[in-house]
């Protein structure tokens, strides 16, 4: 007869080991086929001939490299210039007062960031195009739309919300007691920011700067649509041109992709190692501090507020600032959101727009919509499985955590088009890219969303509930059963949210579908860019409206579901 310990060992072997081996196999298989083998093929082909290095220094190519880096640096600098002050302001309000307006503001910034890039490009054309709203209102035809300015403007609009969110979150880590203590000691606002708040910000600022720089280097949709051709050509659009625009030039695309990898991977390697720069002793101190704060605030938070007292508004200077502040907090992100989406809702030719709705829904739009959903679902399923495998290994094997984390962060430094090209040249003999492949599109999209999802689940997987797990094993539960009972409730909310988020991201993604489409496989974003190229903006608007509403609905559903899960967990804890 087996003893309790032997039984536990056998169960451990049968369930945990099988699962771990299975997870490792899936990871090795997926990352080898979709990432490491294709990228090594790209490197081999880039230096394939004796003159390989000379071709990489082609002056016309170097010019494109310089322009790509220039627009990315300019966009990053401007995004930080506008985003940091707003983030600091929002973070201070969140941390010191925690008002509803600041919470709403942060939500609005997150909504701005979730607008698909294609929608933003279409909206900017509708507003600032040669015959757009701006022209209708003022009679002035803006000339900056298909220039570098338009690309930088769009990049800044898109990245300011990211800066605001990151800075506000980093600021809220600074306990208000510290700022108050510095104030009592005589420190003025600027000194308080520099001496007390800046240390909390600098790591986040460094990371977000590199992230924005990389995003701007890898930006494809905005440059393709708002750049308007060769003068505003980046490495991304050149890869696309070599593969899918005019004559096929795979060797040319490989050269460009090599440079693209160099300028994007470098900051990502830096970014990954920057995670170790943060001093753990500071973090520990902060954690202790925050627990004490929450304990202390209990007294007054339980009191009910008197409506009569709250209704009393005196219009002195403080009250005006008190009214102006929340208004601005909400109006600024709302303004950005309006610029990015307003062009979708006010057709220049309403009659044509109405007829577009009727005709498109019946036939032309239906197939792209269905194909987009197929791709999105497949992308979400693949990425979820791969993330679960990585999270399981990170949770189970503490020693492997940094290695797993490193591998999962690598794809973030590779653009969709570079990865697509690598897969193209590696597996093109077996899967013809020109005949269209839902699987290849989904695989490329999965690899690009995996770093985002893994970052979310890793923070949960790396904080194992050891005490509870031991308690469960003392009660006779196997590790797998203990995992399902204790850890899974923490995992499922973020996983579900990531699943929905990856569907939403995939629906608006243009780069991967631009590489692997065919005449029968034309997903919604590609269909939109095609009809925009034919100046059928009303048709594109209809598709954009469907895409935007779907995207918002999915993300809304994700946050509602998450809230329910969080509430339930809170009830259980209470």
């Amino acid at each position, binding site marked *: 007869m087996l003893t309790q310990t032997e039984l536990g060992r056998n169960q451990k072997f049968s369930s945990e080991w099988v699962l771990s081996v299975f997870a490792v196999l899936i990871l090795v298989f997926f990352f080898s086929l979709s990432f490491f083998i294709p990228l090594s093929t790209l490197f081999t082909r880039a230096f394939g001939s004796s003159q390989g290095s000379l071709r990489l220094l082609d002056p016309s190519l170097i010019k494109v490299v310089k322009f790509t880096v220039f627009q990315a640096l300019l966009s990053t600098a401007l995004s930080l210039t506008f985003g940091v002050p707003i983030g600091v302001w929002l973070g201070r309000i969140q941390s010191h007062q925690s008002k509803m307006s600041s919470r709403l503001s942060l939500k609005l910034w997150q909504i701005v960031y979730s607008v698909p890039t294609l929608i933003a490009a279409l909206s900017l054309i509708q507003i600032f195009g040669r015959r757009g709203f701006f022209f209708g209102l003022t009679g002035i035809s803006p000339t900056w739309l298909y220039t570098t300015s338009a690309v930088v403007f769009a990049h800044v609009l898109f990245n300011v919300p990211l800066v605001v969110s990151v800075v506000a979150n980093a600021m809220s880590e600074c306990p208000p007691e510290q700022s*108050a203590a510095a104030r009592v*000691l005589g420190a003025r606002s600027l000194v308080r920011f520099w001496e007390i708040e800046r240390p909390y910000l600098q790591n986040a600022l460094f990371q977000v700067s590199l992230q924005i720089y990389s995003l701007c280097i890898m930006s494809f949709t905005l440059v393709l649509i708002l750049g308007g051709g060769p003068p505003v050509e980046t490495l991304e659009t050149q890869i696309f041109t070599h593969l899918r625009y005019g004559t096929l030039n795979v060797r040319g695309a490989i050269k460009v992709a090599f440079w693209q990898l160099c300028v994007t991977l470098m900051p990502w390697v830096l970014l990954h190692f920057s995670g170790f720069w943060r001093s753990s002793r500071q973090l520990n101190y902060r954690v202790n501090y925050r627990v*004490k704060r929450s304990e202390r605030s209990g007294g007054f*938070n339980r009191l009910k507020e008197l409506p009569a*007292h709250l209704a009393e508004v005196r219009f002195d200077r403080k009250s005006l600032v008190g009214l102006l502040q929340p208004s601005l907090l909400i109006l600024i992100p709302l303004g950005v959101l309006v610029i990015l989406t307003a062009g979708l809702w006010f057709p220049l030719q309403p009659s044509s727009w109405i007829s577009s709705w009727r005709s498109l829904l019946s036939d032309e739009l239906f197939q792209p919509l269905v194909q987009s959903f197929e791709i999105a679902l497949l992308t979400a399923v693949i990425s979820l499985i791969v993330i679960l495998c990585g999270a399981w290994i990170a949770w189970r094997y503490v020693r492997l955590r940094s290695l797993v984390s490193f591998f999962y962060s690598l794809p973030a430094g590779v653009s969709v088009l570079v990865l697509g090209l690598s897969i193209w040249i590696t597996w093109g003999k077996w899967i013809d890219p020109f005949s269209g492949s839902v699987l290849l599109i989904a695989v490329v999209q999965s690899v690009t969303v995996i770093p985002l999802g893994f970052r979310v689940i890793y923070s949960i997987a790396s904080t194992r509930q050891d005490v509870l797990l031991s308690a469960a094993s003392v009660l006779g539960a196997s590790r797998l059963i203990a995992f399902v009972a204790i850890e899974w409730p923490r995992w499922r909310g973020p996983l579900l949210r990531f699943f929905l988020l990856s569907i939403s991201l995939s629906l608006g993604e243009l780069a991967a579908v631009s590489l692997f489409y065919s005449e029968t496989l034309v997903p919604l974003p590609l269909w939109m860019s095609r009809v925009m190229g034919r100046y059928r903006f009303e048709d594109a608007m209809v598709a954009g409206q469907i895409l935007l509403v779907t995207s918002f609905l999915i993300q809304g559903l994700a946050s509602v579901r998450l809230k329910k899960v969080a509430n339930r967990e809170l009830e259980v804890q209470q």
Partner: protein
Amino acid sequence: MNPAQPVPPVLPVHSNLRYFEARNVELTIAALCLKANVKVSEQERVAIQGASGTGKSSFLRYFAGIQNELGSQSRVESEGELWLSGVRIDQLSPENRDIGLVFQDGALFPALSVGENVSFGLKVRHVSKIERLKQAEEWLKKVGLDGFSGRSVSDLSGGERQRVALARTLILRPKLLLLDEPFSALDAELKVGLRELIRQLHEEFPVPLIFVSHDLTDVENLATRCLRFHETTDLKSQRIVRELVESN
């Protein structure tokens, strides 16, 4: 003494001694109203004693001018006057009040070393670096942390943190010293040591001292006077009113 009776003035207004006075102070926090009429001389160590969540710390924060800066959900509305050695301070910003406040956990700045924390106030007053370091070393010695100047604050124990926070405050020679639950995070042995240190420093550098504590032992061993809350309900406004009164 009748618990509802306000605290009688200890000192005449035009005394040469340093003193702190809170005149007809009324703090409104949502449905709660806190009232105080307090006068403290430089020889006194006054305790505000009461259970957690009653509003003790709110008074200290109000005296320091930071009542709305610490993340509370409800805004604190205030009325009344604060006087410090003949100067009205309730209209002044916290930076200009010349008050020292030691927080419950010390609120040390994690990015700065122990020495930099202690000399922070001198730095913002543009004192030279050599002078700052010299004074910081002196004060660290006074609080029993000689040689700690270069250490990180995250390496300190709870008691050491409180000593650093005390040195950081006293180095500026404030006109009023406020201690917000200074012993709450410490074990019994450390409490005794810190209480003794505070008593010694207060005797060496007399300054009106008010501290908040929920522990009667702290009050009995350190305070020269004790205040506590007398609670009533204002039937008209349906507010809970807590007034600080002298405790026996």
